[in-house]
């Protein structure tokens, strides 16, 4: 068949348009993903890792050259924003198009992936498990899943929630005296909820563009955490061992009231704050404290993101009194899972062993990671990163648990309960009605899923 020049040009133009259209429709993959797929076709020794765009992903990306040099295996990381990441992973798994070897995920996503057989144990042979030095990971017991309890998840970062506070304000002599005069005790990081409220009240000075505390009121798991920590303080929980809800009670009501009360010492905008708004407020020095996670303590050390470098301390979210040993707190492990369809499982294991070694965790941490290994937390970086010690203390002094490790966990913690929190905070429901509605939704969900 012979094409005229004009027709050939038209077809070429059409092809170009189709390619452009297809590339435009291909979602938010980074350049590396395209490269990853191309490379994968041509080179079987390419490891593809899916990850949420985050500082911790940046951290493990920084050690890729070392790994490539040592093992001769190329690593490509496909990143996407948190909002799209979970959906993207699920759709890839369900459509049997999981063309990646490892995924970097929060531990809460693992039960669902394991139950559906999308992922495979990291290792089953004892010799290989020993190579990973698992005893060095606090909470590693939570990483075993399935009826035969296999290791499906290898932690890379453990995050805890706490209170970040401005050491320059807390250590200022004039502030200390004024606080002592007003409240009758010394200004120091809060040890009880009452102290936390007093300090938040003391530093609430809108005229000076300073608020007592940065909180997050967005309808998401972020406002949920504010409620959960207080719920645990009052002896409540999400559900018991029989999956019966434990929040529609006196503890739940007290927790809602406590959380709402604290918003009077936060910026009016805090009721709508998500993660970035809140971290930006604290890092720009517009609040004395922030109820957030360790990641922000890490960001506070970066002069490109923070105006309060070297002026930030970190402490636990207090219980109602100083005794915390039996108070539950969530911690958030992020780590790697291995896809069942991966044809590079040996290289994937090599990466896991390499990236989670103490040496590499210490090397990557300054880029934006909080190491999951105790040895890395207490090692040479401890003096440089002042929040490592309180972070490790939180992990040892509270009854630490992960977010619910059932597939419905994210719906309960990320939607049903935050809905109740914001409905109460904004006056749409009374505390009683908000919790009652949440309990009904919880019961319906669990019943429909066969619990």
């Amino acid at each position: 068949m012979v094409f005229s020049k004009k027709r050939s040009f038209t077809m070429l133009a059409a092809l170009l348009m189709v390619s452009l259209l297809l590339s435009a429709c291909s979602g938010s993959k980074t350049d590396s993903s395209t490269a990853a797929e191309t490379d994968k076709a041509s080179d079987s020794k390419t490891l593809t890792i899916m990850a949420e765009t985050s500082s911790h992903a940046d951290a493990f990306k920084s050690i890729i050259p070392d790994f490539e040099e040592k093992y001769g295996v190329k690593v490509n990381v496909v990143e996407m924003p948190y909002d799209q990441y979970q959906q993207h992973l699920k759709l890839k798994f369900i459509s049997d198009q999981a063309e990646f070897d490892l995924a970097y995920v929060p531990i809460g996503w693992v039960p669902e992936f394991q139950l559906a057989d999308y992922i495979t144990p990291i290792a089953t042979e004892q010799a290989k498990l020993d190579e990973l030095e698992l005893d060095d990971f606090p909470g590693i017991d939570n990483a075993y899943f399935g009826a035969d309890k296999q290791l499906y998840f290898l932690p890379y970062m453990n995050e805890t929630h706490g209170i970040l506070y401005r050491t320059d304000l807390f250590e200022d002599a004039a502030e200390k005296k004024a606080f002592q005069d007003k409240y009758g005790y010394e200004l120091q990081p809060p040890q009880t909820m009452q102290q936390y409220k007093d300090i938040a009240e003391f530093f609430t000075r809108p005229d000076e563009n300073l608020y007592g505390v940065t909180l997050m009121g967005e309808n998401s798991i972020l406002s949920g955490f504010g409620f959960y920590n207080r719920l645990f303080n009052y002896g409540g929980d999400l559900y018991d061992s029989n999956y019966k809800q434990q929040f529609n009670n006196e503890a739940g009501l007290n927790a809602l009231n406590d959380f709402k009360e604290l918003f009077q010492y936060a910026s009016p905008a805090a009721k709508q704050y998500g993660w970035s708004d809140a971290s930006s407020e604290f890092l720009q020095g517009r609040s004395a404290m922030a109820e957030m996670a360790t990641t922000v303590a890490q960001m506070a050390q970066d002069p490109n993101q923070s105006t309060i470098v070297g002026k930030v301390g970190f402490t636990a979210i207090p219980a109602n009194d100083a005794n915390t040993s039996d108070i539950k707190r969530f911690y958030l492990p992020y780590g790697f899972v291995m896809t069942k369809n991966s044809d590079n499982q040996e290289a994937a294991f090599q990466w896991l062993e390499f990236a989670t070694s103490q040496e590499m965790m210490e090397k990557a941490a300054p880029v934006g990671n909080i190491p999951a290994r105790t040895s890395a937390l207490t090692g040479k970086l401890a003096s440089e990163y002042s929040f490592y010690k309180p972070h490790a203390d939180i992990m040892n002094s509270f009854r630490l648990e992960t977010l619910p490790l059932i597939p419905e966990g994210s719906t309960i913690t990320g939607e049903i309960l935050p809905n109740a929190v914001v409905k109460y905070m904004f006056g749409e429901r009374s505390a009683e009605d908000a919790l009652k509605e949440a309990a009904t939704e919880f019961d319906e969900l669990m019943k429909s899923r066969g619990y």
Partner: protein
Amino acid sequence: MPSQPRERLWFVLPGVLIIVLVLLIPILAALGLSFFSYPLQRPDLGIHFIGLDNFKRLLADTTFMNSLWRSVQFTVGAVASEMIVGTILALLLKSHVWGKSFFKVAFMVPMMMVPVVVGVAWRLFLLPDFTPLGPIFQFLHIPFDTSKLLTDPGWAMFSVILADVWQWSPFVMIMMLANLQGIPDDVYEAAQMDGASRWKTFWTMTLPLVAPALLSVAVLRAMDAVRTFDLVYILTSGGPGTATEMVSVYNYKIAFSRYDMGYASAVSTAVMIVLAVVIFGALYMLSRGGKKR
């Protein structure tokens, strides 16, 4: 020229195929899925036919009803405002004003922006810590607490409508300007000779002549407004509380937070049915209006 009906069918076939592939199959798939239980979080539970259970659940779901009502409030508020603002801008641009071409392009800029960007920009513009409105109101001695704009449930809906009006009034303006330019000048000359005032000319001549176009544009905008998602999601995430949680946001949460795909399909099917009834009603009115003339 083909004369046989069978030969003519070949010419229609590509168009029909595209409609079937692009339009009908996804709609039928969504409709079909709404009769099933399909918890994406629990692939081990599989997909089960449950008849009309999802729709029964929907009718008893007060959160769905509330979100639908919020969508109606948003759609009526936004589309009515856009029609008024867009028509005023079109009338101004049709008259002899300086810099007409510049303003025509300048007014269209918001329409060219990605809704997510509009959401982020308006969020920064309205969040109490960032908004420049506080000092402006203070300078003008207007006693208004600007922190309410995104944090007070009543004002938050107003803010979302405001952002939508800002982005989409230019669309109404362009459509109306095209219609206004189609009205012959001699109509206005005759009105002028009869001594009609400008207001009377607009009310009794311009408006009736552009009314069918106005209704068409309103229908198009209403369809779009009911489906608005990205702007609301970025600007307020459905908050404060659930004050701006419209049906599109609720549908998203059911699909991608609860991963209840069967129920999510039932929600979108119900919205499609409600929307179809309203739109067909409006189009019927439009065609009846045309026949009367």
